[in-house]
């Protein structure tokens, strides 16, 4: 029965931990009834555990937790003066606006270069200005400006 546990003290500790097999535990309980040293070992094991658990804990000095919390880099609530700054959500939406404008310009570009200098300038102003509806093409010749410049009537 005492295989692996050399002394009664070790057996008693293993018994309290529930580390004995069923047959070992039953044999130890029989020993408890018949052998005073086994009972004494068990009582001492229980007493040690009680003693360990009953030691009063050392209390932290007053104010230690507050000092520690004060030293952590915690976020402070935002003062009212900062409340008007753009929030991360607004900044992200503005970024999306620019992305949309980039895509819209690319779509306009698929129809070919700006039909005229005034259309091109209007597109540029829209791209750089506040968000709004894209500019309507300025009515004029359907021929692109570069074609008109290169192939003017009468030019050779």
């Amino acid at each position, binding site marked *: 029965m005492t295989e692996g546990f050399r*002394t009664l*003290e*070790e057996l008693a*500790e*293993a018994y309290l*931990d529930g*580390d004995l097999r069923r047959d070992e535990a039953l044999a130890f309980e029989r020993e408890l009834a018949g052998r005073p040293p086994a009972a*004494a070992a068990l*009582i*001492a*094991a*229980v*007493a*040690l*555990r*009680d*003693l*360990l*658990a*009953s*030691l*009063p*804990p*050392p*209390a*932290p*000095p007053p104010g*230690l*937790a507050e*000092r*520690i*919390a004060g*030293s*952590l*880099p*915690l*976020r*402070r609530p935002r003062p009212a003066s900062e409340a008007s700054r753009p929030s991360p959500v607004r900044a992200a939406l503005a970024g999306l606006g620019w992305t949309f404008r980039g895509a819209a310009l690319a779509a306009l570009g698929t129809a070919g270069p700006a039909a005229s200098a005034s259309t091109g300038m209007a597109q540029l102003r829209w791209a750089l200005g506040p968000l709004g509806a894209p500019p309507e093409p300025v009515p004029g010749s359907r021929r692109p400006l570069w074609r008109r410049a290169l192939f003017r009537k009468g030019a050779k």
Partner: protein
Amino acid sequence: MPLESLSEAELARRCRRGDADGWRELVVRFTPLVYRLGVRMLRSEAEAEDVSQEVFLRMHRSFDAYDSTRPLAPWVARTAYHACLRRLEGAARRERAGDPESLAAVPDAGARDPEQAALGGEASTLLLRALGDLPAQDRALLDLRYREGLSDAEVSEATGIPIGTVKTRIFRARVRLRGWLEPILGRQGT
């Protein structure tokens, strides 16, 4: 809901969001555990205060690594346990190198334990003296198991020591303590 009554899971969620009140509550709730472990492993109240500060700073920096489905106490205990071990190793290294300042950091084996100073009871005093003669790691294991009330599995999680080794070391430490405290334990049991 008052912060004191927050569950650990809710407290962890608040801390993960960087909520300042949540962090204050975490510090208030767990400073006693960290400080106690520091006193018992380092055997110095000043060192225990320093290590408490270090532990919460480390936790603040690495809170994303915490698994919020697990209880907080073993995670806090693990951070504290390893911080104490690092200090003990650093002090031992400096002592080997002959650094005179290290002598102040290494607890004097003959010095009175800060806990002993606060206790008058014969049994408690003898037990603390006997605990002081154990290696710091064994003291921490017994402490987490019997005084902080963690299970063997939680002690294993807190220290990173396999559960089988935790059980064996606690077992051997108890047997050593019993050898030293034989007369007292006989009386306690009667």
